[in-house]
């Protein structure tokens, strides 16, 4: 399998399996890569690599490569640029999400809070005006990392669920308009109202493989589940070593199976330094530790776009990266991990392709 690895100071890919991983030379340097994606290309075996880059000097950009990162393309006018009437400028590309419903369609979550759609496999993107003009916009606040749409979940029907920090979860019936907040039951501990309609600091959401109305959310404080597409949520934190983290992954084919990566918010390290996934097989009623082979003395976080799961020949393959430059992968549903890379810059984004 292939793994794309975006870091604070460059981009790498890895290929192989648990017995041997081959890490590339740095494919791009002197920029951060907060988002990476493999986009399937009709009739071509090699997926397109689409990456969200940011040079501290020369600004953000979305680049594409059809040859595993050897050569890159970017339109002269840029792949993603705010229309002049918005008075805004792109600060960072937080997530790039291929849409499994429509070949060639790719979504991008961008700072400032905005959602973008590409219908040419990530070459160019168009701003979603309905979300940009949302009446709540003035009240959305930046999370610690900035004000951004960071999670995009296309539903099997025409709908979509997105998450932003700090705006919370929003849903649209057609992936285009009528964005409504979907945060009922998600508690916040940083404002006077513990259950606001929106404004939650959601860190990641994931959709159940079989039931699209079942969603999981790793929030700033608490893990939550929805059984109705996000209209309401209930906490499922009991049994976890902590309620904080950035990652939640849903099994790609099996219902009620999900993983989180708990992080201690007072240190930003895993609890007791033990880097582990925690797995549920019953939609969050119970949890158990998973991840043999992961380190016991690990002092760095795992952030939201730096973890990914895909179906690999009927089994869940998981890869994730850490902010101290390690990447781990599992081809047995997260039970055991091997080290893909170490001593990289801090890892911001990881995506797997078969």
């Amino acid at each position, binding site marked *: 399998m292939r793994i794309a690895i975006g870091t604070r100071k460059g981009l790498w890919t890895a290929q192989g399996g648990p017995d041997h991983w081959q890490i590339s030379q740095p494919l791009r340097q002197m920029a951060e890569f907060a988002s990476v994606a493999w986009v399937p290309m009709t009739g071509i075996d090699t997926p397109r690599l689409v990456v969200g880059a940011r040079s501290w*000097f*020369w600004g953000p950009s979305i680049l594409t490569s059809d040859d595993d990162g050897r050569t890159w393309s*970017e339109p*002269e*006018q*840029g792949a993603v*640029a705010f229309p002049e009437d918005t008075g805004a400028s792109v600060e960072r590309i937080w997530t790039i999400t291929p849409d499994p419903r429509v070949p060639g369609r790719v979504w991008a979550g961008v700072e400032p809070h905005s959602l973008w759609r590409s219908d040419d496999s990530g070459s160019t993107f168009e701003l979603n005006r309905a979300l940009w003009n949302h009446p709540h916009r003035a009240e959305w606040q930046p999370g610690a990392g900035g004000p951004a749409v960071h999670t995009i979940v296309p539903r099997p029907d025409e709908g979509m669920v997105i998450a932003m920090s700090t705006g919370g979860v929003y849903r649209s019936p057609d992936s285009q308009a009528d964005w409504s907040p979907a945060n009922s039951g998600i508690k916040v501990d940083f404002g006077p109202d513990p259950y606001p309609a929106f404004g939650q600091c959601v860190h990641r959401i994931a959709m159940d493989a079989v039931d699209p109305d079942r969603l999981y959310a790793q929030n700033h404080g608490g893990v939550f589940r929805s059984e109705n597409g996000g209209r309401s949520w209930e906490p499922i934190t009991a049994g976890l070593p902590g309620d904080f983290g950035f990652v939640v992954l849903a099994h790609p084919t099996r219902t009620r199976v999900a993983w989180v990566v708990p992080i201690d918010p007072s240190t930003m390290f895993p609890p007791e330094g033990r880097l582990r996934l925690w797995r549920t097989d019953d939609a969050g009623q119970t949890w158990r530790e998973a991840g043999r082979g992961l380190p016991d003395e690990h002092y760095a976080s795992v952030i939201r776009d730096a973890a990914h799961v895909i179906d690999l020949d009927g089994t869940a393959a998981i890869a994730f990266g850490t902010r101290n430059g390690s990447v781990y992968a599992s081809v047995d549903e997260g039970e055991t991990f091997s080290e893909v890379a170490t001593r990289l810059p801090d890892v911001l984004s990881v995506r797997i392709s078969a």
Partner: protein
Amino acid sequence: MPVTLQLPQALAPDAGGNRTVVIELEQGSSLGDLLQQVRHRHPALVRRICDETGEIRRFVNVYVGDAESRTMQGMRTPVPSDAVVMVVGSVAGG
């Protein structure tokens, strides 16, 4: 009047591989006029220097002669004949 835009190596690929771009401007032109002319020829280059609002990016400095444009009149800074306009990444990083 000819004006020379000098670029760092990192931006040369966006200027056809060149580190200098010579632009013919009318007398009395400003830095904004210069960048607008450059945009017609090398749109990607100007996108690296300015964001979508037209502002020079935070960690980019543009010198008109010896003066950094923010200390002058910004985009309205006059560009004299035969001027050298230099684009540099600011000293930052780690």
